[in-house]
Every structure is written in C-alpha cells, then in structure tokens.
C-alpha cells in the first residue's frame, strides 16, 4: 500500500508575529500544499510560536498581545495552532531549543496517544484524526516528524555572524528539517550551495516556491498603523479589531528596545569574546 510511506508532519514557525499577517498564514498553506503534493508527507498540524519578549527586537510589543492576535488569526483554521511555551519564557530561547521542545511534546503525545495542546475541541479532534489516520497505516509509535517553517530570510540569516550557533543550525536542519518559502528574486539554492553545512543537509531542506509575490511584512503593517492607514485585508479582521481596541502600534511602541542589542547577538557576541 502506498500509504505506508507517507510520513505525518508537523510544521513549526518561529518568529516575532508582531503582528501576525495573512502572509504568515499563507506560508503554512503553501507549505502544506507543496509537501503533500510530493506524496511523501501528510501535514497534520501547524504550530505558531511567537518569540519571547526577551528577544529585544525593536518595536516588539508584549507577548500576551502577540499571542492573542495569533490566536484570533488562527480561529478559522482547522490545522494551524498557536503555542505559548516559547513566548512565556523569561528570556529568549534559541530556536533549536524550541524545536527540541516541540519534538519532545509530540513524542510524548504520541506515546500517550493524547494531544497535549490546548487547541479548541473541533480543531483538536480534526488534528487527532489526522494523526490516527496516518499512524494506523504507519504502525509507528514515534510520532510525526517536525520541521521548521520559515521564509528565505531565515535561511539567509544563518550566514549572519553571531545570529546562530553552528551546532544549532546543524541540529535544526540535520535532525529535523526545514521548509523554506521562496519567491522570484531570492536565491536560496545559491545560499545552500555556498554553505558547506547547509549543502550537507540539503535533502532536509524543502523549497516551496511562491509564485504570487506578496510582500506584506509585519514591519509594513506597523508602519501603516502608526500612520493611521488602513491595514484591512492584510491581516484577519479580528486582529485588526484587536489592534484598534488595544491601541497597539504607535510611534511610542516602535521605540521599544530601540537601543537594545538583539538577544542572540548579545548572547553569542559575549560568548565569543569571553
């Protein structure tokens, strides 16, 4: 039976989600379509993991708001969920650790045959069905595979000094895998070619080409909001309403962490100088 070879897969996206946009959500849809089209995977769940306030990125508003917006944005999705573990950590957590954490969660969930997530009932049931549907064929007890979902910019940030520990990149790409959304103009393949480590694990890197360019970024959305311009149809309506209600993005909020060094830079620069 051909179903034997289908691996069930969970996609994890890490980032600021400041705020979450339709583009973030599109990445999940594009990735799922692409991976399922290969005939090798069944994407059973997506996890959005907003970064903790300790990341110290300029303009990063409180995690509680970013979490709530992500929750509102995924209310109408039957497979994308939001997880608060990372953003509730007092300090910034390396992405490799976040991936490890979620992998362990998936493992224990598979063992207990119980979903540890706090997803809503219908969503939970749908995701449970996804797991069961595949695992009965696979007769596997080690749970679904986990991959990190990202834009081409993350792949390129691997090359930036002091942003990543090399062993973390090796763990993420080598042990788990990467799904990277690319578009015309960016050259991720060249980037992989130029990095010995990425090249070594190239088979674990899945490129998803986005044919319809869409440059909506959270930065652009915040800029429009500061200027009192409409952001409708760039973000889900409930998120737009939430931002208005809480008056979230202003010139003032954009100055948060303005003179602070980004947590990874701080951590790795200190480490290399000591």
């Amino acid at each position, binding site marked *: 039976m051909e179903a034997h070879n289908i691996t069930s897969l969970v996609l994890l996206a890490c980032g600021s989600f400041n705020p979450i946009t*339709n*583009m973030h*959500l*599109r990445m999940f*849809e*594009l990735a*799922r*379509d692409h991976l399922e089209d290969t005939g090798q995977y069944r994407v059973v769940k997506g996890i959005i993991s907003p970064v903790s306030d300790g990341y110290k990125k300029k303009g990063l508003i409180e995690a509680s708001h970013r979490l709530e917006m992500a929750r509102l944005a995924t209310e*109408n*999705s039957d497979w994308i969920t939001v997880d608060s573990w990372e953003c509730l950590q007092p300090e910034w957590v390396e992405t490799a650790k976040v991936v490890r954490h979620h992998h362990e969660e998936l493992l224990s969930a598979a063992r207990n045959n119980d979903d540890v997530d706090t997803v809503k009932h219908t969503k939970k049931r749908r995701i449970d069905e996804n797991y069961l549907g595949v695992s009965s064929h696979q007769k596997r007890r080690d749970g679904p595979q986990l991959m990190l979902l990202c834009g081409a910019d993350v792949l390129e940030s691997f090359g930036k000094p002091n942003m990543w520990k090399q062993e973390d990149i090796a763990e993420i790409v080598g042990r788990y895998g990467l799904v990277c959304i690319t578009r015309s103009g960016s050259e991720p393949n060249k980037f992989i070619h130029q990095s010995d480590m990425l090249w070594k694990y190239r088979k674990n890197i899945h490129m998803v080409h986005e*044919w*319809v*360019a*869409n*440059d*909506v*970024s959270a930065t*652009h959305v915040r800029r429009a909001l500061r200027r009192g*311009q*409409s952001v*409708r*149809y*760039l973000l889900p*309506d409930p998120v737009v309403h939430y931002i208005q209600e809480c008056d979230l993005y202003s010139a003032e909020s954009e100055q948060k962490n303005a003179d602070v060094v980004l947590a990874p830079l701080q951590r790795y620069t200190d480490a290399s100088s000591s």
Partner: protein
Amino acid sequence: MANRCVPLVLLACGSFNPITNQHMRLFELARDHLHSTGQYQVVGGIVSPVSDGYGKQGLVLAKHRIAMAKLALKSSNWVTVDEWESQQPDWTETVVTMRYHYQRILKEYEQRSTGMHTNSSSNATPLSSPPPQLKLLCGADFLDTFKIPGLWQDEHVEEVAGRFGLVCVSRGRLQPERAVHDSDTLSRHQQNIFLVREWVRNDTSATEVRRALRRGLSVKYLIPDSVIEYIHQHNLYTEDSERRNKGTVLRPLTKQAQQPVNSLDD
C-alpha cells in the same frame, strides 16, 4: 469651519471572477491616499461586476460573481456591490456604467440637499456641501488597456478621464506614470488622475486564484473564507469553467468595431 472636502465615490469595474482581498485592498489604499490630499472625503465605494456578455474566458455567471462580492464585502462599512452593470444583457461600456452611477448619486445628493432646506426652519442656511464626484478606481494594468486598439473609443476615454477622473493604484512593477505620459488624452487630464503607489507588492490576481482552485491548491487568506466556502459549494472554478468563452472575441472589440458606422448614421 465646515468641511470643504469634496465628497467622492469610488467605482471599480471588472470581472471580479472571483473578488480577492487585493481588490478590496485597492479601495482601502485609494481612500487613504485621497484623504491624505485633504481635498476629498471618500463617502462610498462601489464594486460593479461586468455582465456575462463581456465574453471573457473563464468568466463564471454574474449571479455567482455578485454573490461572492457581496459575501466578501459584508464586513465593509463603506464598499458595496451594485448589480446594475452585471444585469445588462449585453456588455456595457465603462463610461455608460459611470454615467448611470453618477446620475443616481447626483439624484440622491439633490434629494438630500432639498430635504435639508425644508427641514431647516431657522436662519441657518444649510452649508451646501459641494456635489459629489465619481471616480473610476482601477489597477495600474487598467491604464494600459487604453492603448489596446479597438478596446476603447477615444471620446469614452476623454469622458472617463476628463469628466469623471481616475484613481489608479500601481501594482508590482507597472508604471502608471508611463501610461499617462504615453496617452495624449490621459496627459491632458493629468490633474484628474490620481496615482496611488502601493508600496507592498502583492501579485494576487483572480487569474492566480482560479489557477490554484483548478489545481486543488489552497487559496485561504487570498480571498475571504466565506467566498472560499461559496466556491466549494457551487464547484465554481474547474477546468470546464475555465473553458467558458474560449475563442470568443471580447465583446468590447466586436461592439466598438460597429460603432463608427453607427455614428455616421446619426
């Protein structure tokens, strides 16, 4: 001080096959831009889907396109869908659709201002706000259609750009300034053509949406959920539906070809 802003209604004509989030973004971008000029108060937006007589390939029935546009705009408090154009048995020239809407808007305005006169008993003569204007809202690619031979009659371009005016949102790398420069008619009415720059590139098009739907790919977050549901319920976009009107000459091309003869008869 009273608001001296000119009230303005934006009209978007097109296939809306189906309506996408990008269509609705055009309205938002145009309104923000016009407000930032300090000269206009955008009081409404109209989506006017083309009639089935247009003859464009893959065009699904107007009743479906109308229903989808209505679902998509349910949550908008200023953009509405108008069925008049879509219900005409034959394709209607854009200028004719504009005339229809402008008359309707003017009539409403006159009724409102006479109503104000009768209601105001005291000395306060109602500040007659300037009469509303109607402008055509379009994407940058639209300006290029003026160049296509046989698609537009010169006097229609003249009336659309001169009498009404255009609000054109640039998309991707298209250069609307170029299109205006290249056309004598358009450059003559430059002051009546508002070019809105969309800084965020978004290439979502109805064509791409139909392509994804035919291939069974996700279109979530490109069009509203309610529209996706409607499309699935009615199984709207398939390989069959994309073959509709295949090989048919676009109605404006055949209709306008007859026109010069008609005008000689006049």
